[in-house]
C-alpha cells in the first residue's frame, strides 16, 4: 500500500515543474527614492503541462527573504506597484502553459521606502495545478537612495578651428547650435554649477594665451553678455533642478601670439546645492 501511494505521488506531482528566473532588477540595484524600477521575471513550464501559472512580486517584510506581496496602494512603503491596474499577483498572458512554454511578467514598482534601507525583492510562481510545486526566483537586493549628484556635459572639447592672431570675439563653433549644454539629470539633487579654466599653452613655442581671453556666457549667444574665464572658480548657475539643461556659449580673443596649437582646460564643477562651493 505504501508503495502504491508513493508511486501516485511521483506520477501526479513530479511530472511538471516551474523553472523560474528573475530578469530584473539585477542584484544588487540602487534606486532613487520615489522613483520606479522594473521587476521582470520569466517562468518556463517543464516536464509536462502546467495549467494556469501566476507570478507574485514580493519583498521581505517580516523575514530575511521575500515573504509579502508588494503593495498595490499608492504611497505605501517601502514599495507600491505603480500601474493603471496594479496587481501583485499576475497571471501569465499565455495561460494555460503547456510543456516548455514560457511567460514573462513585468511590474513597475515605486520605491517609497526610507533612504538607505535595503530590501530583497523576488517573484513567486505557482500553478493552478496543486500538484505542481511553487517556485521562487532568486532575490535582488534593492537599496533606496536619496537624490544623486548626476550631470552630463554634451561636449568634451571646444574646437575653435583656425583663427587669426589679434582677432577678437571669435565664437566657438557650437554656439549657434547650443552644443555646450550641461544637463542636470533626472533623479539628481539640485546642483550648483561652477566654472574656471587654465591658460592655453603651446609648450613647444613656450607661448600662451592667458585664460582671460576665453569668455563665456550662461544667458545668450551674445558676446556682450559674456564673462572672462579665470583661474578663480565662479558660478555658472546655482540651484539647478533635475531635468534641466544649462546652455553655455564661448568666445576667444586671440592676442598677437605665435602660430601653433594651443591647449587648455575648462573645468565644470557640480556641487549639491547648499554645500560649500569649490
Amino acid at each position, binding site marked *: 500500500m505504501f508503495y502504491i501511494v508513493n508511486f501516485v505521488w511521483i506520477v501526479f506531482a513530479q511530472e511538471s515543474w516551474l523553472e523560474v528566473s528573475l530578469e530584473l532588477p539585477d542584484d544588487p540595484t540602487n534606486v532613487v527614492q520615489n522613483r520606479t524600477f522594473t521587476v521582470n521575471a520569466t517562468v518556463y513550464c517543464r516536464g509536462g503541462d502546467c495549467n494556469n501559472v501566476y507570478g507574485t512580486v514580493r519583498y521581505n517584510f517580516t523575514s530575511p527573504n521575500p515573504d509579502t506581496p508588494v503593495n498595490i496602494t499608492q504611497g505605501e512603503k517601502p514599495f507600491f506597484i505603480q500601474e493603471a491596474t496594479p496587481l501583485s499577483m499576475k497571471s501569465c498572458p499565455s495561460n494555460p502553459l503547456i510543456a516548455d512554454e514560457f511567460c514573462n511578467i513585468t511590474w513597475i514598482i515605486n520605491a517609497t521606502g526610507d533612504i538607505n534601507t535595503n530590501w530583497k525583492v523576488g517573484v513567486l510562481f505557482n500553478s493552478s495545478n496543486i500538484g505542481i510545486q511553487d517556485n521562487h526566483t532568486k532575490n535582488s537586493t534593492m537599496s533606496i537612495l536619496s537624490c544623486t549628484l548626476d550631470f552630463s556635459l554634451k561636449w568634451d572639447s571646444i574646437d*575653435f578651428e583656425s583663427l587669426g592672431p589679434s582677432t577678437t570675439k571669435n565664437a566657438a563653433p557650437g554656439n549657434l547650435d547650443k552644443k555646450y549644454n550641461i544637463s542636470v*539629470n533626472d533623479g539628481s539633487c539640485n546642483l550648483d554649477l561652477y566654472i574656471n579654466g587654465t591658460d592655453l599653452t603651446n609648450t613647444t613655442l613656450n607661448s600662451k594665451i592667458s585664460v582671460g581671453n576665453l569668455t563665456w556666457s550662461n544667458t545668450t549667444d551674445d558676446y556682450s553678455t559674456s564673462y572672462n574665464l579665470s583661474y578663480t572658480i565662479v558660478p555658472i548657475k546655482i540651484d539647478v533642478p533635475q531635468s534641466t539643461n544649462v546652455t553655455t556659449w564661448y568666445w576667444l580673443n586671440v592676442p598677437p601670439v605665435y*602660430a*601653433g596649437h594651443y591647449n587648455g582646460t575648462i573645468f*565644470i564643477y557640480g556641487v549639491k546645492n547648499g*554645500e560649500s562651493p569649490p
Partner: protein
Amino acid sequence: MVKVLLKTLVLFLFFILLSSAVYAINVGSVVKNEFVEILSEESVKISMLFWNIEEESYTVKLSVKDAPKNWLIIFDPSEFVLNKSIGEEYIDLPYTDEKIKAKAVNVFVKADTNSKPGKYFIVIRAETKLPQKVNGINVVPERLFEFEIDLKESAVTNRIENGNSVLSFGKEFDLKFEEAKIINSNIKELKNKDNFYIFVMFLVLSVLIIIYKKS
C-alpha cells in the same frame, strides 16, 4: 623687438584646436551616508557609488579637498576607471532604460585623537581624467562632496568621566593593566592557598592511615 614683429606680422592662420569626435561626458554619483557619527577612538566608513552612462571610459581620482587637521581619510579605491559596464552594483536611473553598473567606493575616516566632540566637515574632490586630446581646449567635469561628521566622545572616555576622573586613553590602558596585575596576583595567592590546603589534607590523611594500620 624681432619677436614682437614676428608675433604681430604672422599672417598665416593657426590652429587652436584640432579635435576628432566630440563625446558626451556623464558623471553620476551618490553618497549613501552623508551624515555620520564617529567616536573619537574609532573609524567610520562612508559608502559612495560612481557611474558613467556613456560608452567612453574615463578615470576618476578621489582626493581630500578639506578636512580637519590630522584626520585620517582613506579611499578604497582612490582611482578607478569608469564606464557603464564597470562596477560591483547596479543603479536604476530614471532617465535611461539601460543597465548601468555603479562602482562602489568606501571612504574610511578616523578623527584625530585630540579633536574635541562636535560637528566637522570633510570635502572630497572627484576629478575626472579624460583621455587627453593632442590639441585643444578640454572640458573636464569635477564633483565635490561634503560630509558632515558628528564626533562623539569615545565610550572609554565616557566611562572614566562617569567615575569622576578624566583620564586619557593611555591612562585608561595603564589602569586596566594595573587591574590585570592585581587580578593575577590574587589568582597566585589563591593557588598558593589551594596548595596549602591540599598539603594539610594529605598530611592529615597520611597520619590517619598510619594510625589505622598500627591499630
